[in-house]
């Protein structure tokens, strides 16, 4: 009973370079280890073949080292790896694939399907119909030819393509690399393995996106999985089972602080962050001085516990409360300045308000430091 492991969008060579230098290599490395896990999974599941539906590489000009590492990572599964190029690694006149072949890095059990032609695997009981991208973008359906491609009777017809299935999302209309929704029916496919979408999406009974095995973006899209596809026999609807493959969990936390307890909720979430989480935190709204100090502390702690936490507080407005101000024990002209900065916060333009806000925070910090010092030294203020 043929059984396939369907995966796609490995995006090998993505470096997450905008992340800090501590986290970026780990996240890049995770993409290779995800492939290693897939190989192990394939072996463990005893699959007939692994279908890789494009965007194996993130770019054409990844380093030779990266190319070699990727093909090395496949070693744990000795069965056939069936790969097609996607839009990131299209089979151009010169491509990462031609380079890999030149390097001699491609193992014998890896089948690079760089041409739209039927590949027969008679001993394994299936025929592969690949639709490789040979240009960066095409506006015709590369799976058209499946309809008329003949395969020996009794062999499964497995399609492998990379692009956007039409008719699911409004924004996919007119998108590049379109794929007809009814291709499995028209082309009498037993399964059409798709790549391009990074989230897992089972579009139809014989049509699915596996998503990327290791997430690479914060957008919540059900990524980090591969699909086990059991096809009992020709013509039978396959059984599709998602399998979690991700090492890291990527997510985005966006909160607008409106009342004080909102901040508490955020802090609870931060408290709960795990070491395998990659988090993008965006906080907007208004916050008092005291609460901001607490929030800053909480963020500091969370940065230590999560794999990566990137924080955007640029939309968060510091609005010191009267208590905050009283607590600073500022008198004389210091008090005047604080008052003016608070007013400026509300009256000037966004840019001016930001500067005023930062200035107020700085002043508050200095005053707080002073308070802390005087408190510890036990000196009495006149």
């Amino acid at each position, binding site marked *: 009973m043929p059984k396939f492991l369907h995966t796609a969008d490995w995006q090998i*060579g*993505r*470096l*997450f*370079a*905008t*992340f*800090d230098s501590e986290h*970026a290599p780990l996240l890049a490395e995770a993409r290779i280890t995800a492939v290693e896990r897939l190989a192990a999974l394939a072996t463990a599941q005893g699959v007939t073949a692994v279908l890789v539906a494009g965007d194996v590489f*993130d*770019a*054409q*000009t*990844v*380093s*030779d*080292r*990266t190319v070699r590492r990727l093909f090395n990572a496949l070693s744990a599964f000795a069965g056939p790896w069936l790969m097609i190029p996607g839009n990131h690694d299209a089979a*151009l*006149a*010169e*491509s*990462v694939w031609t*380079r890999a072949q*030149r390097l001699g890095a491609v193992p014998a059990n890896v089948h690079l399907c760089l041409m739209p032609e039927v590949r027969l695997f008679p001993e394994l009981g299936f025929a592969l119909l690949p639709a490789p991208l040979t240009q960066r973008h095409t506006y015709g359906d590369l799976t058209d030819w499946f309809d008329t491609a003949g395969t020996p009777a009794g062999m499964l017809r497995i399609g492998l393509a990379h692009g956007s299935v039409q008719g699911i999302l409004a924004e996919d209309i007119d998108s590049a690399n379109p794929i007809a929704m009814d291709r499995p029916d028209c082309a009498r496919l037993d399964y059409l393995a798709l790549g391009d979408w990074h989230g897992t999406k089972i579009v139809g009974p014989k049509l699915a996106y596996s998503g990327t095995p290791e997430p690479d973006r914060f957008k919540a899209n059900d990524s980090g999985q591969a699909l086990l596809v059991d096809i009992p026999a020709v013509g039978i609807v396959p059984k599709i089972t998602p399998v979690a493959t991700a090492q890291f969990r990527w997510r985005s936390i966006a909160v607008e602080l409106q009342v004080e307890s909102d901040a508490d909720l955020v802090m609870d979430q931060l408290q709960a962050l795990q070491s395998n989480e990659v988090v993008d935190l965006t906080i907007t709204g208004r916050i008092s001085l005291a609460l901001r100090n607490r929030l800053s502390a909480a963020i500091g702690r969370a940065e230590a516990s999560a794999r990566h936490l990137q924080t955007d507080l640029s939309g968060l407005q510091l609005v010191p409360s009267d208590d905050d101000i009283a607590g600073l*024990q*500022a*008198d*004389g*002209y*210091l*008090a*005047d*300045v604080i008052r*003016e*900065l608070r007013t400026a916060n509300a009256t000037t333009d966004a840019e001016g308000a*930001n*500067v*005023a806000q*930062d*200035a107020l*925070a*700085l*002043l508050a910090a*200095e*005053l707080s430091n*002073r308070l802390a010092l005087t408190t510890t030294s036990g000196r009495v*203020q*006149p």
Partner: protein
Amino acid sequence: MSNLHLTRLQIEQLRQFRQPYVLNDLTLGLNIFSGPNEAGKSTLVRAIRAAFFERHRSTSVEDLRPWGDSAACPTVEIDFNFNGQSCQLIKSFFTKKRCNLRVGNQAMEGVDAEDYLANLFGFAFAGKGVSKAEHWGIPGLLWVEQGSGQDLDVSHASDHLRTALGSQMQGDVANSLAATGGDELLARLQAQRNELLTQAGNPRADYAKVGEQVDQLQEELNGLEQQINLYQQQVDELALLRQQHLADERDKPWDTLDVQLREAQGKQVELDTLKQRLNADRSRLAQLIQTETLLQRQLNGFETQEKAARDREQESQRAQSQLEAAASAVEIAKQQAAQVRQRTQAAREALQVARQKSLRDTLIVERNTAAEAAEKLQQSLENAKGEEIKLLKLRANAAAKQITKREVTKLVEHDQAAREAHIKLQAVATRVRLELVDGVQVNAVSSGKSEKLTGQSELLLHSETFLALPGVGSMRISPGGEDLSELDRQHREKAQTLLNELQRLGVADVAAAQQRLHDFNDLVGQIKLAEQLLNSFAPDGLAELQAAIDTALGKTRQSQDALERLPAPSEQPALALETAELEQESAEAAEKTNSDDARETELAYATAQSRAEHAAMELTTTKAYLADPNRAEMQRQCQQDLAGNRVEQSVLQERIDDANAQLEQANPDIVAQDIERLKLSYQRIQEDHKKRHETVLLLQNTLELAGAKGLEEQQQEVSGDLSRAKKRQREFARRAAALKLLCEMLEAKRNATLQRLQAPLLQRVKHYLQLLFPGSSIELDLGLAPKKLIRRLASGQTEVGNIGALSFGAREQLHLISRFAYADLLAAAGKPTLLILDDALVHSDESRLAQMKRVIFDSAQRHQILLFTCHPNVWRDVGVSVRSIGL
């Protein structure tokens, strides 16, 4: 009025004051103490300072100990009133270390007492060793040590002053102005700002570095992106080229060209053949045309010969008839010639006769004329000869009597002169009248002349005259006077001249001369007449006349001879000569004409004869030629050839036209161009193909190399670095902006606050300053020390100067004023104020000192002032008595 009043000071065992020394009855206001140097003024001041500033336990006050007294116990007692309470401070050092303070009823001891005082007066103690300026606080400001009045360090008292200033404000205002620890906070923030920004506000240090980093990374990223773009373009190019290459390999477009080329070349060969045949045809045709011309010409020759034969027949006949005509003309001419000759002969003879007669007539006339002339001339000659003889006679006469009128006139003049001279002489001459008896002769000798005198005679003596008187003797008479001799000489001279002239002319006297002149003139008239006559007979002279006669006689003879030689006159009557001559000319002209005509006629005949012979001969020849049978054969052959020639020509022409049409249609030039074009195209397409293949290989190689560089990974990395650097830059920018804003606001607020705080102090300073420099003002620095003096000059301008730059004396004056102002401020704040001036104002000039005395006097209205001086006289005018200090 001050709330502090020192009333009594006692010191003991302190420096030179080993015994107790008391200053009693210190008054409120000004107290002046004087004494010479070393009298102890400074010791008193030191004692007061020690009492307050030094801990009683201090071991660092050795200077208080009297010299060489190790057992001494320096003690200071100060009684004072403060806020109405009577107080006493007793402090002693070394052997009996103690400090007692009584304030009203409250007594304190030791450190408590000292701290109480320090708090009250606003100073601090040294942690260790002797008390220094930084501890002295308010007293340090108000107690001026000897020789330090020109210096002012407010820093150790400025907090006290600020507090005092703050207390001047009302309620909330004071609170709002005072900022606790504001300056430190500002300093910290400024330090933070300066870490990021330069003084000019530009990024520095890390902030600047991150900016450079951003630029550098951006540049690097742009470079990488360019490389990636190039790479992608090259990939596309490779795909395209490869596709084209494969298409060419498959379609072999050069094959088509090759086929076309071969076709064109075949066509060209065909056309070349056609062209060659055409050329052959053309040259054959040209040959035929030439032959045709020759044949035609030959035939024309035959025809011409026949025509010539006909012409010659006619010509011969015409010549014959002309010959006959010429012969008859010759005969007529001969007859005419005979007639003419007869006429000529007759005319010639008649002319001869006429000529002879004419000659004879002429000769006779000539002979007669010449003979008459000779006769007439002979007569004239004879007359002329007679006249000539007369003339010769007259001329001889004339020559003998020749005299001129001028000569005569001159002679008359001489005569006149001689006479006048004589008269003059006679008038003066000595007159001697002699009346001699007859016979007596007296010889008078005068001037060599002797004269014999007889009878009655009178002598006029002009010169000495000797009279020989016979018998009597002699008598010498000398006429007197000089004139006489002169006159006598003149007379003689003139008389001689006259005589000479008469002699020269050959006349006796003047009258004779005049007669001769008359005769001579008459003769001249006669000569002229005779000459005219002679001239009328022989105008050219006699010889000429004789010659003319001879000539005429000769002619006569000649004519006669000619006549005699002439033949005898003929019998026939002679014609007039002119008539005979005309006849002769006419006859000769006719003869000549006749002769010419005859010659012409004969010539014409000869010509006609020759032509007739020639024509006859030619005719014969031609007839013989035409009769030749070969000639007929040749003519026939020619005609036959010509016909054949024409047929061949028309065939050839047709073929040529046909070939031309074919060539025109095929256009061989274009075919040649086609071949060239196709060859080039073939070559080009092959080259392109090859070149494309090479480019493909090159591109492939380039891309392989570029691909291995991992460009997009590098791009990601650089782009990541860049975005982090940019983020950091933004953070810096935000922080810098915030710090800048904050510092600016704080500085502005602080300065504003300070200015408001300083107001009461400035008011006090101004109060005193008006006494010293009316109309001027002082600016304080942030530490409340006087900083600038603003003076109004006499010119009306304002002068702003740093106080540090003023003279020693002026600085001391201004600093004293400041101290008084501080004192006023502190007093108002309830602080104890005591002013001690040790040897102050010694550098002030008289007028300034006078002003300062007013200042001091004014200040003394509010504060107790202890003034120590070694110049008691200077201070006698400040309204208090000067107390002497001394042991």
